[in-house]
């Protein structure tokens, strides 16, 4: 692997212990870092079958609902079927394995975890497919067939039962273009046909889901969010060519606590204000030679300059993230992240005599939008309910991690809390040890491969 850039960072965990020293920033790219690859692979090709939900919906004749909460406006009890689906989990899984798993190369693609069947669509299938849709299509069809086989449901034995089963699994699809929210079959990411724009697939994930998956540990939230949003930025073309180093540095400092900068800034300002964090960031940047005073104006006002905006940007992002942590930590409320993201940028610009602010100004625009729409009648939602690719957030690829951090710090002020919107995702950590300690694992994986990245 060729090392294109001189930049090297050391990675620290959230207790300021150094986990790996002097890794080339390429080691933090989804194309090199094995842990990142594993996470993305998991997200891309995994489906979940919630058998309890399936059983209760089938019993009550519930299918084709639209509501996110409640999910009870459509009910047809006369078509309901009381079947012991959870009891037959293993049998159902066997049949799905038969239909789907056989394409895998020895990989165990179907596993039963209590009342959930986890289906990992085989790599071969994903490679041949032009999309990642088999996560939904294959899983759902195989599931319906498996249940029909186990319980002997066919047009001869149970005409209405066939279609009630379909209604529970598929909702109103294809009359509706997507499935019911909270349907028995789900994936990590949204179905691709409801993703706006090209390449944004990995960012079709809800803030609260990330918070739940890291069990509200702030810097793990930053890491996992950065892996996903960073991958989306690549896929969208936002990290190609001129932006490659910019993005690598940005996520290294914002998401993976490069050189412990975020944590240093937080600790220095644990009783401080947002503006204090701005000052600390500049002090540190001057010390590290990232920026320096170019000249002074008549009033004594200093004009700063830099030869390395991507690195200064990374410092600004670290400062923004630290300020979000300080402000949300002081208030222990996720709603306090928005104000930092919208308005800290002016602080950086005015303090440096006009150097470009975080993400070149994108953070301010997206941040103000986020502040407005988390406080207004015009739409939006509480911060936890946003998806990374929401139109209001997608103006910047760096705004998502600090929002996750803010929600991790929330002590229960939100109506749309992770406990309400993402209860199933808390359990995923136990199901997938891969999701535990992402910050640590990114560093370990970087350590593992750093020797392979040679100067080209």
């Amino acid at each position, binding site marked *: 692997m060729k090392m294109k850039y001189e930049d090297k960072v050391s990675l620290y965990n959230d207790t300021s212990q150094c986990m790996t020293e002097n890794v080339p920033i390429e080691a933090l790219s989804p194309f090199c870092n094995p842990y990142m690859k594993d996470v993305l692979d998991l997200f891309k090709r995994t489906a979940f079958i919630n058998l309890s939900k399936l059983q209760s919906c089938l019993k009550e004749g519930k*299918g*084709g609902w*639209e*509501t*996110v*909460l*409640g999910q009870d*406006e*459509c*009910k*047809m009890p*006369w*078509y309901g079927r009381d079947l012991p689906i959870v009891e037959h989990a293993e049998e159902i899984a066997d049949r799905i394995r038969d239909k789907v798993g056989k394409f895998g190369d020895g990989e165990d693609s179907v596993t039963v975890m209590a009342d959930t069947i986890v289906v990992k669509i085989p790599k071969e299938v994903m490679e041949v497919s032009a999309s990642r849709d088999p996560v939904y*299509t294959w899983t*759902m*069809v195989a599931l*319906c*067939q498996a249940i*029909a086989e186990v319980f002997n449901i*066919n*047009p*001869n034995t149970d*005409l*209405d039962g*066939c*279609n*009630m*089963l*379909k*209604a529970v699994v*598929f*909702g*109103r*699809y*294809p*009359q*509706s*273009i997507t499935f019911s929210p909270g349907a028995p079959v789900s994936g990590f990411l949204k179905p691709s046909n409801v993703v706006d724009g090209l390449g944004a697939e990995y960012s079709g994930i809800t803030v609260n889901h990330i918070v739940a998956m890291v069990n509200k540990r702030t810097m793990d939230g930053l890491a996992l969010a950065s892996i996903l949003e960073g991958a989306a930025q690549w896929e969208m073309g936002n990290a190609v060519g001129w932006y490659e180093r910019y993005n690598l540095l940005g996520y290294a400092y914002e998401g993976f606590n490069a050189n412990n900068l975020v944590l240093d800034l937080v600790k220095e300002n644990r009783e401080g204000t947002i503006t204090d964090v701005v000052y600390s960031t500049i002090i540190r940047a001057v010390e590290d030679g990232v920026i320096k005073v170019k000249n002074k104006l008549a009033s004594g006002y200093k004009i700063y300059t830099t030869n390395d905006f991507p690195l200064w940007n990374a410092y600004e992002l670290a400062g923004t993230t630290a300020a979000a942590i300080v402000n949300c930590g002081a208030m222990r409320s996720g*709603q306090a992240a928005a104000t930092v993201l919208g308005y800290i940028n002016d602080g950086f610009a005015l303090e440096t005599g006009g150097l470009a602010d975080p993400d070149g100004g994108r953070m301010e625009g997206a941040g103000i939008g986020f502040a407005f*729409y*988390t*406080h*207004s*009648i*015009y*739409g*939006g*939602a*509480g911060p936890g*309910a946003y998806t990374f690719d929401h139109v209001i957030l997608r103006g910047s690829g760096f705004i998502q991690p600090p929002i996750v951090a803010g929600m991790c710090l929330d002590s229960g*002020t*939100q*109506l*749309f809390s992770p406990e309400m919107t993402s209860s199933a995702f808390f359990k995923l950590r136990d199901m997938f040890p891969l999701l535990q300690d992402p910050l640590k694992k990114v560093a370990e994986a970087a350590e593992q491969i750093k020797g392979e990245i040679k100067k080209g």
Partner: protein
Amino acid sequence: MVEELSEEEKLKRFVEERKKKMETERAKETAMSSREKDYVRELYRASEKFIDVEKGREIYQTMREIWGAEPLSGVDEKMYHRGGYKQSNRKREFVDAGKQVAIKRGLPSYSRAVGLPVGQRMLEPMPVGKWGITIEQDDSHHMNNTAIQQLNDDIKRTVIMNLDLAHRMLQVRVGREVTPETLNLYMETLQHTMGAGAVAQEHMNEVNPYLVKDAWAKIITGSDEIMDGLDPRFYIHIDELFHPDRAKALKEAIGDSLWVVFRVPTLAVRMADGEAAGRWAAMQNTMAFISAYQLSGEHVISDLAYAFKHARVIHMGDKLWTGRMRGRNEIGGIPDGFTADIIQSERDLPMIPYVEYIEQEGDKGASRIVSRLNEGVGGISAMLDNTLWLGFYMSGGIGFSNTVATSALSGGANEDILEEFSILGTKYLRGKRLPTKWDIMKVIINMMATYVIETYEKFPTLAELHWGGAHKTSIMGTVGAGMAGLLSGSSTMALWAGNYTIAYAMKEGWLRTGWAGQEIQDHVGMPYLCSFRPEEGNLTEMHGLNYPIHSYSAGHGNQRVAANYGAMLGRGSAWCMSPLVKVAFADPHLAFDFSRPRYCIGKAGIKEFMPDGERTAITPACDVLDRGLIKEIAKEFPT
């Protein structure tokens, strides 16, 4: 030596020989065997008897009324001699109007000088249901009919939201209590904000109340306790609007939850689209909340906005696929189960299965159920599917598809036949629902299909009324699906029967179905029926005009909705898919009467239906031909 005959003689000899041959043949004919004679006499006697029976049918009377001629006759003596377009009042009016428009604007307009000379056949009057209203075909064009327009508008402008989450937010985050008093204040405020009245901000643009007199909101709940505390103007009175059995079932299903059904102004959805309805309702609801509960522009507001726009809101229709992209609350996105719930024609009937009902009530009951089925299916689903969606949204100005829907309006034909069949059922079914087994259902469906087919054959006037294969196909499918639904209570069984009736029964009998693509979904419908594949199968309630195979072949909306609605009546339940949608359209304030849709459409046909959303409050009083700046003076720019 051959005799040379003159031309005249050749001709003479030819004629003589032909005469001789004819006499021989005639003699052969008349020398029929006695057996053959008997047979012919039998046929004659049978046909005599058949004529009496047929003359006793309702359909005979209806056809006579429409055509003013012998319904059983296969000949129209006056074909081509009816005066062309002049036989129709409406078309004469159009010609006059077209002339006036052309003169006024200096460009040709509607003109019978171009295209074919219409009216070579009889342009027959159309009786609407059994309402005693007769309209002309043109009166059922959606652009001429204010009731059909209001049908679309009243659905498009409806959104249903749940309040429980918002109330919880108030209690948990703001520490405010929700009481009957606060609810009443909120509801009163909501009536103001739904018409774009301002509550929190100064210097807002507001809307003339006359333009939005059709904007309001009402609570839907199953809780008697909550309803008792509310101002009676502010909720839908389920107990008064539905038969007690139905009311009880609906209230139980809805429970203590508090929902609000919003009616966005007709003018608003006409200016924008159905998607705007959800946004209007969410915004105005949020403002009413803010005002009634004294909130500010603070963070909790975004929770409200999210709750009302996304978290627990029911739109009437989903978004559509890219190829026919439209937002929510448009007809294409309405699931067929919702359409069946939107129909209200069964509200006053007891909630017992069809077969039990006809056993109890006899012939009258049998007629009643069938006429309600036809009222709803013909008046609503046929209009939505054929007239509005496929015939207009998706294709534009051609006036063909809407005639297919109109065939479902003509109660005389469909009701009459189905009623007979239904009455037959009272004698044979003995209160027992049919199981969902094709081998049993096929007997009844075959009987019924052939019965309908024969009726078309016996009544050439009926065949002329439903002049297109498309019309007959649409009716056949509806009748098959409706009957099977009534008999089995299963919408899947009903759809099967509907598909079969068209794809096999009708097709093999006549070697003819509808327009070239009409039967697509009937063929595909069978392998699709119980399939688990993603774009196939599913409960008929979950189908609709965005479901790929239904999206491009017309004349089946009434078939699918007849399957759902018929099954609802068949099993004796109070709704098809959603109890909330069922209650929402019982709202007596709506201009369109969803329990008597054909009556509304008939009234609109005779220009006696006033729609909502009129702009008279802001338009000048002027001639029907005026437009733009009324004064003809060309004004110079000031600078």
